[in-house]
């Protein structure tokens, strides 16, 4: 089937199988391998992207459901010379080790901060990241990074 989606600001018209998943379209058709797949039960969150302004698990979205949507992936938020404040905070706070969960974690964290009513505290961040598994960091530095980034995101 034909779909058109806007990914990282670029519109793409693609012919994909009816049973294609958004995660596979991103990784295999568009070469955006920063979106990772770490489980098959929609739990780990390594595949989180933004779709029409909300963080979603792209392994649990059919390509057809994303037809017409605006999608932002980890590759679309910043680059080494111009990092998103959340990316910068992850680096600054050593909030990643193996890096595999990191793209999904960063995309979730950005959505969490953007949707927050007021200032997030540690508990809010821990609750807000319950849909993202990390096996390396024990979350300690991820929480620190998100708390630090929220100020930078507001001033950015």
């Amino acid at each position: 089937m034909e779909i058109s989606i806007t990914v990282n600001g670029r519109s793409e018209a693609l012919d994909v199988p009816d049973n294609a998943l958004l995660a596979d379209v991103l990784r295999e058709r568009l070469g955006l391998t920063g979106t990772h797949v770490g489980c098959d039960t929609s739990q780990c969150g390594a595949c989180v992207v933004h779709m029409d302004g909300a963080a979603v698990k792209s392994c649990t979205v059919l390509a057809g459901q994303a037809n017409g949507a605006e999608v932002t992936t980890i590759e679309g938020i910043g680059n080494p010379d111009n990092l998103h404040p959340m990316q910068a905070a992850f680096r600054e706070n050593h909030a990643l080790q193996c890096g595999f969960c990191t793209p999904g974690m960063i995309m979730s964290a950005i959505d969490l901060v953007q949707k927050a009513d007021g200032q997030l505290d540690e508990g809010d961040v821990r609750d807000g990241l319950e849909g993202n598994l990390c096996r390396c960091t024990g979350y300690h530095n991820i929480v620190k990074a998100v708390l630090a980034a929220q100020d930078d995101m507001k001033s950015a």
Partner: protein
Amino acid sequence: MANETGIGAAVKRKEDARFITGTGRYTDDIGAHGQTYAVFARSPHARAKLNGLDASAALATEGVVAVFTGADLQADGIGDLPCGWTVHSKDGEPMVVPAHPPIAVDKVNYVGEPYAVVIGESLEAAKNGAEALEADFEELPAVVDLASAASADQIHENVPNNQTYDWELGDKAATDAAFAQAHHVSSLEIVNNRLIPNAIEPRAALGEYDAASGLYTLHTTSQNPHLERLVLAAFVQIAPEARLRVISPDVGGGFGSKIFVYAEETAVIWAAGKLRRPVKWRAERSESFLADAHGRDHVTKAELALAEDGTFLGLRVKTLANMGAYLSTFASSVPTYLYGTLMAGQYKTPAIYVEVQSLFTNTAPVDAYRGAGRPEATYVVERIVETAAREMGIDAAELRRRNFIAPSDFPYETPVALTYDTGDYEASLAKALEHADYAGFGARKAASEAAGKKRGIGFSCYIEACGLAPSQVAISLGAGVGLFEVGEVRVDVTGSVTVVTGSHSHGQSHETTFAQIISEKLGVPFENVTVLHGDTGRSDYALGTYGSRSLAVGGSALIKAIDKIIAKGKKIAAHMLEAQEEQVDFADGTFTVADSNQSLTFPEVAFAAYVPANYPLEELEPGLSEKAFYDPPNFTYPAGAHICEVEIDPATGVVDITSFVAVDDFGHIVNPMIVEGQVHGGLAQGIGQALLEHGVYDETGQLVSGSYMDYTMPRADDLPSFTVDTTVTPCTHNPLGVKGCGEAGAIGSTAAVMNAVTNALGVASVPMPATPETVWRAAQA
């Protein structure tokens, strides 16, 4: 001025730039032109005869390229997956090893064991083909329960009583004598729960074969690509090492589970050669649960004999260790040389006797998982020490202090075969007690009780042995490989440096810490250092990363190579400056001549080495590139004190960790930011074992906790922020004075949590993991 990117600085990581921008390159991100896809048909039964396999429908499925069975691999001369450490039983006999074909041939022994691999033009075609296979299984009763496995049905024809070995360590007679004169004996029966590693990146492999050169290339998620290559070449017989290149690109966490050589990459690389087409495989998480090697899984009875003043007199430990269905790559060493040898802990217990019976069951193979044997040992020692303190009415911290090996006792030879080089256990405990505000615990407990909650505090003073060594000792004890490491320093023409290490980073940050060492020692700007790893085509044979060894062993190799660079640089500089070699000094990136103002920068010397215009070619080879192998003379012995405080809701059994303090002695530290991160991650895994994680099989051998819906992974909202601090006694026998930090968190924390939970509940023991229902039941009693 201190080097801001040198040893001891909290330098931000080189690795991060690619990982935070989504440009890391993991195995599943790599594709090959014309690649096919492998799907493994996995046994639905825990134990069955495979009487036949009809692949005709599978082969007729659209898009299916091939179906390979265990018999196909055997017919092609593909060997078994070996176990690399031969443990000997009490009677001197070597362990009994069952056949372990990569793909099952005529029987299956655990749910998830592969019995065929289907290769398709697409993943979907391969899956369709796998579903169309018709396997004729004859189910047999499964052996699942470890405690009764020795008297259950025999799983392997050549393994009576399902026992691979019955091992002992220590002096039985001396230990019995110690118990005979004990004032008090504490005893404890404990189960160390099975864990499923769950690196967030599932295992994956891409096999390629170049018919023109006969060269095989395997990209895979390995912690030690050289070991992978050695096993695939020498044991599995894919091809000689020289025609087999194994590349581990970015790897998304390992925790031990990616040390081992598994069926899947074996079949993938073999099939690539057979088909002369690239073959790709990536585990789905459900496959990771079934077929990654699991961890822990012990049943233990421990007894501690004490004198009236609380002095430890003797320790007796009897353990049943679950091997699962087959011996995984290093499975045999985990409950023996990485477990029994740690039973002295931080204490001067004079007599220790450990017995370990390792048994087969119809479950996934069990092997090293973060800590590997040492968390199990710590759990035994620290649970029984805490139990003894409570039974004898001695403060738990005080009882430990009375029995600590004192700084003046080092080097200290334990009754279980290790010689600790250095340590200051009291210093770590004192610092931890201060951080934990031990003095204020009573008031906090009273406040909790007033709110209807139960509060407890628990200690764990652990020791571990890292950087497994020396090779000759390990080999004499059964190791099948050497345990050295290689480091190579290639100084480039303009003075930048490329490091090639046999260690592998899958989160540990070698690209940063090894560059810091170069920056410190050679004065080369940090940004001008690149660290390469994870490719047998780049580095010499080496052992990779496991057992917290990278810095202690790989870093030491690097130092030796740096020393060679400096030595040669001095020769070159002496020639260029017309001085005696002994007069040349090197510091901060500059060669100077004593008592003169003559000097050369490191890049100037490097340039001269490659453009040898003014160079002693008759005495010295051109170039500035050195490598070194380092075989450690001893283990390193990181140690520390962990203190956990919990508050329990007795109505629901929910355990809330209100504070966790870890004070660790890792010797010198290259990058404190990275070390703290390693500790945090280890703590999460240790706490996960204590409260959340449990690999559960039902009585028929089906894995009940086979997905994230049922296997409780620690999430952000399950954990507190940690208080992490260090003390320093430098390792006495490696050039950096470092000990290793990767596993400490997982080794020390579990016992601290369980000691806190039992303390809160006022009970002797609670099964692990202390889940809400378990705790609720204990709270009712």
